[in-house]
């Protein structure tokens, strides 16, 4: 009887999630997969021969890694500082930091245009105060560099959310102990702090790289379709002039696969750490 109840409870708790996963992930994936293989894989061959595909892949990887690295560096610093604060200040700041997570990519892009665009508040202030050429300054926000920075705006909070518990649970006495045993400051950090932080930091990095790699709304609103990255290529393939749907589906699968791969690297790292912790 008890066993039956346990199973029933598991089913009741798991079914909604499983249903949503099936309807909104598996089913679309199967349909896109069917479309991609509708000409027996020829679409993938066409994709590989597309002039824009390989440079687009390289640009997307570069953008993902750059935005990921900036976000990780920023996020680590913010999380470390937060972990040293008292609980009240930390909660207040966390609320502010989490805010960008609730904005859609389009809103973020438009916000940056209003601040850093040609007629943006910051741009015009810089012109008035320091004589900075607004056309030059605005070209930054509309470039791939600008895109990487805008991505960081909503990726840093993700890193902070993941890293804060690790830093908060880190017992600083360990550093003091290492130092009292003769280790230098940096030696103590490298041997005591880094090993405990590294797995989560890697997982966070993988997550934000995957998000930056697959994001398209912000890019479309900010830099337009001239910047050759894979999500925007996919957008052009299904827009007004789009006729080759197997090709678009093949590209969608490639994007999904690459994002999933990046995420799974992170998951594997975390799982490994979990095992070593359990073994202790």
């Amino acid at each position: 009887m008890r066993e039956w109840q346990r199973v029933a409870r598991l089913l009741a708790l798991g079914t909604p999630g499983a249903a949503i996963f099936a309807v909104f992930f598996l089913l679309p994936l199967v349909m896109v997969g069917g479309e991609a293989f509708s000409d027996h894989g020829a679409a993938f061959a066409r994709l590989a021969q597309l002039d824009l595909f390989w440079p687009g892949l390289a640009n997307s990887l570069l953008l993902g890694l750059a935005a990921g690295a900036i976000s990780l560096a920023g996020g680590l610093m913010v999380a470390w500082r937060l972990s040293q604060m008292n609980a009240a200040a930390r909660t207040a700041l966390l609320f502010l930091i989490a805010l960008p997570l609730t904005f859609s990519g389009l809103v973020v892009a438009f916000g940056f245009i209003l601040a850093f665009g040609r007629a943006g508040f910051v741009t015009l202030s810089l012109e008035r105060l320091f004589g900075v050429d607004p056309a030059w300054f605005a070209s930054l926000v509309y470039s791939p560099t600008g895109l990487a920075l805008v991505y960081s705006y909503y990726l840093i909070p993700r890193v902070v959310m993941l890293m804060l518990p690790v830093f908060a649970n880190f017992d600083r006495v360990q550093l003091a102990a290492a130092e009292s045993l003769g280790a230098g400051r940096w030696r103590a950090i490298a041997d005591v702090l880094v090993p405990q932080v590294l797995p989560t930091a890697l997982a966070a990095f993988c997550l934000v790289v995957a998000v930056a790699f697959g994001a398209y709304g912000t890019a479309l609103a900010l830099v337009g379709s001239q910047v050759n990255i894979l999500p925007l290529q996919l957008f052009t393939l299904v827009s007004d002039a789009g006729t080759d749907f197997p090709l678009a589906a093949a590209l969608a699968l490639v994007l999904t696969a690459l994002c999933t791969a990046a995420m799974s690297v992170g998951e594997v790292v975390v799982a490994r750490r979990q095992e070593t912790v359990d073994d202790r």
Partner: protein
Amino acid sequence: MALDRRSFLLGSAGLALAPQIAAAQALSADTPELYPGERALYAAAAKEGMAVSNNTGPTWANWAALFRAFGQRYPEVTLVYNDVGSGVAVNALDRTRKRPQIDTIYYFGANGIDAQKRGLLAPFKPVNFDRLPETAKAPNGEWFTIHQLEVVFIVNKKLVSTVPTSWADLLKPDFKSTIVYLDPRTAGVGQVLTWAAVLAHGGSYDNLQPGFDYLGELHKAGNVLRVVGTTPYAQFVKGEIPIWINYVNDGLRAKFVDGMGDDVEVISPAEGTVAAPYTISLVKGAPHPNAGKLWLNFITSEAGQRLFAEGFVTPAVPGVAIPEAVQAKLITHSKSTLLDLEKAGAQLQTLTQGWAKVAL
């Protein structure tokens, strides 16, 4: 039962609104008809309760004004609309062809021809169909033109020192990093402006090279600021875009409706430009065919066509009386030719691929 309740709810919603707008011109027993048979068609449409108008974005081509006027005249038919983009609209309809969820579909003309080839459309000859030129409609009315839009230069005079008046002007160093236009791969207007560049430089529907050469030169000179994927109207009004190659109505709207006034100049290029026909169709197997027909008739009626003109969009029905106040705001187009939909449609791949080679 569920269906009955829904139509009851929609019907009562319409009735609830009716008293306020009866003063406007709601069609009743003693109002004159816009065309013979209007009252009977309205009665049939009211039983269906709603019409689904696909791809008519409210901010595009003054559609919002037509929605309002339709709602006032036919309070018992709820008009539902969305905005997805011409190519996407046709593909979505193709996917649901066995059980379409939409009654009418509006698009850039070339997409209408595509939809007809795919067998997605029902023949219907609306009011004033006979007045449309032969090239502006399918013989049996599977699609017909309702308005056209010319490609122009929309210039923010606050951001450039001189105003370009020709395609040749745009190549000058004065206009470094100033020009924004829409990607031909993602938007009909991008294709139309590419055709305008082709035809203005001695090319033809079989020879696109002169247009590619011109756009390539424009990019190489560094005068193109951005190629964008979606209409950057808000960006233009905010002052982010010095020169926008785009349809005329957006420029006049920024000038007269959204307060940019004399800061905006709308220029028809001296070498000539192209006007793009936009068409609409009744969908084969439409769930509310009578309501769809009522909507299409309203669009091609004198009243509907005049509403386009009031949004600075050129009506397709010749000889529609345009109010003088509106006429005064319109610009004269130096040499504007109507895009040949059949010929342009056949070259779609050549155009987007050739463009990508010179522009990306």
